[in-house]
């Protein structure tokens, strides 16, 4: 059986082990992990970006998290947690934990660097207009941080949606089922089909995020507009720029 035959076989698209069901499982693991990671990483990132405290420690440990081998950690967690968690949850909990650990660093980094790199001029202007520090955070720094936050979320999503295939290693469902079963059963069309579906799902989510970025981010902050901005539009601005540079 070839890859195309596997993908177009109606039998693979129906039933409890069918492609739509496995995609739903894959998305369920992905979004559950992303939601938990966001609840942890976004407030923490705001705190670090706002106060400047703990950046070295948190950023350092978040980066160390990236180096953890997901599959090894998954098996270790399963073996350690099995006596403490009853029923089928024992397969789900370690999987979600490793995916959350994978998702945290990009979101955290995106949030605090976003807040820190908010345009100084905008912050100064807000302060001049009498904004309090909290108002500056929510009305100026957060909107300015949004592009980086979203790109952090996007990075996490891509990593998590493709890594969620490890769920199948501990008996769970998801697109990893095709990859692991295909290998064990020497059904390489199934294996390649699973890998292809994961890639397509990642690309679909990527598309979703670029649309999301367009809808959520203020037009003034979009990278494309910003890239065009440095060109002075009239002689007055040009003169001003030259003056500032000369001083």
């Amino acid at each position, binding site marked *: *059986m*070839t*890859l*195309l035959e*596997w993908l177009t076989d109606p039998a693979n698209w129906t039933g409890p082990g069918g492609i739509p069901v496995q995609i739903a499982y894959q998305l369920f693991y992905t979004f559950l992990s992303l939601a938990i990671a966001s609840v942890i990483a976004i407030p923490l990132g705001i705190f670090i970006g706002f106060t400047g405290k703990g950046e070295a420690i948190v950023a350092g440990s978040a980066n160390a998290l990236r180096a953890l081998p997901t599959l090894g950690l998954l*098996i270790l967690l*399963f*073996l350690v947690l*099995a*006596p403490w968690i*009853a*029923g*089928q949850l*024992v*397969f789900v909990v370690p999987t979600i934990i490793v995916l959350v650990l994978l998702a945290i660093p990009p979101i955290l980094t995106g949030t605090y660097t976003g807040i820190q790199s908010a345009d100084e001029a905008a912050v100064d202007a807000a302060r001049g207009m009498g904004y309090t520090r909290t108002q500056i955070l929510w009305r100026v720094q957060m909107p300015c941080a949004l592009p980086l936050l979203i790109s952090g979320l996007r990075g996490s999503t891509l990593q998590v949606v493709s890594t969620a295939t490890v769920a*199948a290693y*501990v*008996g769970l469902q998801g697109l990893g*089922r095709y990859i*692991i*079963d295909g*290998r*064990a*059963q*020497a*059904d*390489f*069309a199934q294996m*390649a*089909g699973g*890998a*292809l579906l994961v*890639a*397509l799902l990642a*690309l679909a989510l*990527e*598309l979703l995020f*670029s649309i999301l970025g367009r809808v959520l981010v203020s037009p003034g902050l979009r990278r494309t507009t910003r890239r065009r901005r440095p060109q002075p539009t009239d002689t007055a601005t040009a003169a001003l720029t030259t003056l500032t540079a000369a001083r």
Partner: protein
Amino acid sequence: MRKLTLTVLSAASVIAALALSGCATGDQALSGGDAGGSPGEEIVIGSADFSESQLIATIYSLALQDAGVEVREQFNIGSREVYIAALQDGSIDLIPEYSGALLKHFDPESKASTSEDVVDELSDALPEGIEMYDISEAQDKDILAVTEDTATQYDLETISDLEPVASELILGGPAEWVTRVNGVVGLRDVYGLEFKEFVSLDAGGPLTMTALLNGQIQVADVFSTDPALTANNLVALEDDKSLFAAENIVPVIASAKSSDTVQETLDAVSAALTTDALIEMNGKAAEGTSLGEIAREWLDSAGL
């Protein structure tokens, strides 16, 4: 807009690449040299993806090296479905096998269950280019194990006893069991067992054992040579309809790489190997002793 075009373009290229490579996979499992042996003089030894298979492969490897044969180790390949294909296309030359399971691989209809019957049928069933040496008396069968509590609760002694309660129980085993005759398929066809669920874990490894002991699965595929069986008072259900045939350890080799030296060396290993020795060595492996050390120690004690 540019980003969108880029995404669509990259999607298209991924599909194209995968479709091309997928079409080529067809029937051939792994590409390599011609059927019947890798090129060159050295013997490539493979193993399955569980510790006992790697242990026996290590023993073969050390024994052959001691006999002056040039070897290369290519362990931890995967399931039988994968490594037999690798043996047939010459990616590997030698692998330790289990007679009954190998027979079922080539002849799913086979009813042979004793060591002698299995060997007789197996030597006929082996495809051209592959041969087997003498079997060892050492055996390691797949067994269905339950905890003592489960056995008492449902009054289980044989696999047949599972029939009325299977729909309440979860079975755990390796992913290849889903499609195997001596796995989920045979349990359904021969014993009429429909479990509540099958959970894909590992081949008699730590995941399966942990899940069984902690009750996440109630019935597990484990190996009869696993010392954890007695250590945890597990009950091995009797295979009263002989689904799982005799599983003597046997070296299977590409004919092109077979020679008198190799045969004499491996026959001597098979003659010395016993089931008890396997259980003992598996115990040491589970404690973390390196396979090379265990294999060397056994070879020394067996005088090989």
